[in-house]
């Protein structure tokens, strides 16, 4: 196995709920190797999305440590986490999460601009062409179908060429045909850029395309 790009050591996540604290993740230890594709599967509420959020620095662990490319994410403040993602990570969500006031092109260009890429627009245009949306550059998210929105989200995540791609049920809101197309695109992009992919999914056939599958149950690795 290659050296791990993401490493989790006894990670726990407890969130406050109306009826008291809820233990979402309970002592997760895990290494993700460079170039690996890892599928996270498990029933609803098992904590797989939360685990992905922790890997992306979008959620703070209650205890334990998470390192990515040797950087301890649990010790970084929010701004440093944002800058880290800017250079190393691309994230795709089930609900796309495009900025509604920006066109498809502007959505894809945003992470490049934040990284001060001098050719952000040109690269964003090329990236949208890769996902087959050259004809939708200037459309706003509300003017795109679900499948198209997810393709924009994929282009946005991959445009800065991140070494880590995190995808949280990227086909969850799509029909079978669109879902399959998105998964093909996701794996193609990963292959083209030699990135590490962590994929959360309910679908066994999608998980089967990954190098390794981890089952989560009740906040623990089963």
């Amino acid at each position, binding site marked *: 196995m290659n050296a791990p790009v993401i490493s989790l050591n006894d990670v726990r996540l407890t969130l406050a709920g109306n009826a008291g604290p809820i233990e979402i993740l309970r002592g997760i230890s895990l290494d993700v190797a460079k170039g690996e594709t890892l599928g996270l599967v498990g029933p609803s509420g098992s904590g797989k999305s939360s685990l992905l959020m922790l890997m*992306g620095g979008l959620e703070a662990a209650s205890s334990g440590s998470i390192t990515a490319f040797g950087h301890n994410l649990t010790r970084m403040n929010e701004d440093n986490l944002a800058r880290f993602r800017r250079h190393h990570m691309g994230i795709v969500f089930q609900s796309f999460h495009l900025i509604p*006031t920006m066109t498809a092109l502007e959505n894809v260009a945003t992470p490049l601009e934040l990284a001060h890429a001098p050719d952000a627009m040109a690269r964003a245009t090329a990236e949208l062409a890769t996902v087959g949306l050259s004809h939708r550059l200037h459309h706003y998210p509300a003017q795109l179908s679900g499948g198209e929105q997810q393709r924009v989200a994929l282009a946005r995540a991959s445009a800065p060429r991140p070494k880590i791609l995190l995808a949280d049920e990227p086909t969850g809101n799509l029909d079978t045909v669109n879902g399959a197309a998105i998964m093909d695109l996701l794996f193609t992009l990963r292959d083209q850029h030699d990135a590490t992919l962590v994929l959360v999914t309910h679908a066994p056939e999608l998980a089967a395309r990954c190098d390794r599958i981890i089952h989560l149950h009740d906040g623990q690795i089963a």
Partner: protein
Amino acid sequence: MSLRSALRIAGRELRGGLSGFRIFLACIALGVASIAIVGSIKTAIQNGLTQEATTILGGDAQAEFTYRKASPDELAWMHSNAEQVSETLQFRSMAVKKNDRALVQVKAVDDLYPLYGDITLDPEIPLAKALASNGFIAERALVERLSLKIGDKITIGTNTFTLNAILTHEPDNASAGFAFGPKIILLTESLKDSGLLEPGALFDSAYRLKLPPQTDLPNLQSDAESRFTTTGLRWTDRRNAAPGIERFVRRMGSFLTLVGLAGLAVGGIGVVAAVRSYLDRKTDTIATLKTLGATGNTIFTVYFTLITLMGTLGVAIGLALGAAIPAFLGPLLASKLPVPALFAVYPRPILEAALYGTLAMFAFALWPLARTRNIKASGLFRAQTSKANWPRWPYIVATFFIAAALVASAAFLTDMPTLTLWFAAGIIASLFILRLNARLTRFLAARLATKLTQSRPALRLALRSIAGPGGEANSVILSLGLGLTVLATIGQVDANLQNVMRSELPAVAPAFFVLDIQQDQIEPFTQITAADPEVSKTETTPMLRGILTRINNLPAEDYVGHSHWTLDGDRGVTYSATPPTGTILTAGTWWPENYTGEPQVSFATEEATELGLKLGDMITLNVLGRDITAKITSFRVVEFRDMGINFLMVMNPAALQAAPHTSIATIYAEPAAEGRLLRNVAGEFPNITMISVREGIASAAKNLASLAAATRWGALATLLTGFIVLIGTAAVTERSRTYEAAILKTTGADRTTILVSFALRSAIAGAAAGAVAIATAALAGWAIVTFEMESTYTFQGGSAVAIVALGTFASLIAGLLYTWRPLATRPASVLRGQD
């Protein structure tokens, strides 16, 4: 579905409480409250003036004359009708204490004064004692100006007077006109041999009548007018004791009501935004109701009922505030006002405010409400297009009629229909321009966003947000822009007026106006001023007053067919053998230098045109009770604004020379010479009154400033409404900002970048609102200054910069108030909630 079902659903919708309606309520309540407050204060003053009428007037009725006392006939008539007649004389003079001088307003009274009300002095001694043995009382301003102590002596004319008390309350002060200097009161008999009431002296006399209780005032007035009006008698009685103040209060109140209506219009934008945002959140509910069988009518009824209930609550809160604030602050306000005011809860202004508030609420809420009919059941499964869809035509027509009813009510109730219509047109035009500006701003933002360099991601994000759909730029520019437009217009007009008074006049204005120069004093007077090296010019001219009573043997008003200021009381008239220096004749010829024939008159061209006068017309002037009929033989240019000596009418010398009169003069001098001139001239001629033009302008500017302050307060209330709408807009966008911040953090934006981006979009929208407010205000200011005030408009940059800065700052503050949560929230909690 029946009406009952619709109402039942509306009741269920109300379970959500008022949380989505705070801004809606605040917008309506603030607008209604400000109009109710203005109306209540106006009514309080009007009632105060009515209740205290006899005290303010100083009698049940008053007969006034200019430059003369009542004739024996007139006095006899007054004594035959009144139980008591009290005479007061008023004129300007110089009070001298050793080498110190001050312009004063002298009120000479008899021992019956005051017929009504009480005068209050410090120390508390009887008035008779204070005025006995050449005593006088003075306002505190004079005591401070001349550093006087009780018992100190001053000279007025050639007589010496002793200060016995300070005047702290004068019952009939409110009916007095504008005074240049502090007031002193003394006995008329103590002015004997002072040289101040010589024939031709410029004084006003007033005779206050204490009438028997059963007196029929209208009859008495018409009797007096039929007997004496052509002799210059002016009548006032307790039915309208202070017509000037009453008119001023009414017009000011109406003007502030219009400013309040502008506030309601700004609030209306908040109402539209609040209703739209509320209904947007209800899209799924409405689509579900439609799925269950609700018709468009039912949906409209449900939400119309809800909004009406909320609107009524808003109006009620506004009315409660509008009634309570003047009533609670009444004692404090009454002590600050120079006129009597009776503070209470008055129904009429409250009802007027309720009418305005209700109409404004429906005018603004109906449009977004009517669009609920267009929501389709398919909205549950597919995002509804956010593209603006128009309501059905009956709703558009209804909105138009409600808005028209609002304007018509204001036109009728403010009693200023023309101004109201202009005002309404101005607001509609402003809204249209602001709407265009919002589009232009979005267009430019989109263009700029694609052109900017890579090094400014925060600016690009801000510009994209402004350019994109559903951004807050529209609401911010409309609400803030309209509030700023009202404030900026008042700023432009006010600054122009101040500018006229400060910078334009001193360049051409004289240093002093000099009054009461006796004929034998003209020669030595001009010698003194000519000897001063810093005096550039001295002009003297005879001064009389005359009432233009008849034109071509018809009563003047009947001939002209409308009212005109030249017919409103007495006007200055002079005589001259030759055309005064600089005279420009526009028609006719000047009389020969030694002309002694039938009286001839040269009339001001502009006013003659307004009166419809032609060469050869005969006009009759009543001068000191004597009719002089003269033929118009020339017209000439008169520029009243240059503050030199200007007369509406100039006659040939033989026509007026025999009448008792004095001369007036203007002295043009360097400011450094003013003190010296005052000492030399006033020292040599005690009866002469010198009025410093600089001090006069300062005094008028002070009065103007207090007027501007009142309108500025009204405009600030409008701006406050705009700010509340801004806060509402920012509050509505907090959720989308939090979401946007979470996504931006996910794609690598740090908090500084996001904060700067949020701040920039608020500042850009605020600056755009300010910029268009300046442009609109410049246009409105130009129209008001040019057409209403007949002055020259100059764009006031200082005021403009302040407005843009204020707009940017207000927008920034409102935007930043709702930025902390988006910045502080972790992305996962936001994005998880959306999945």
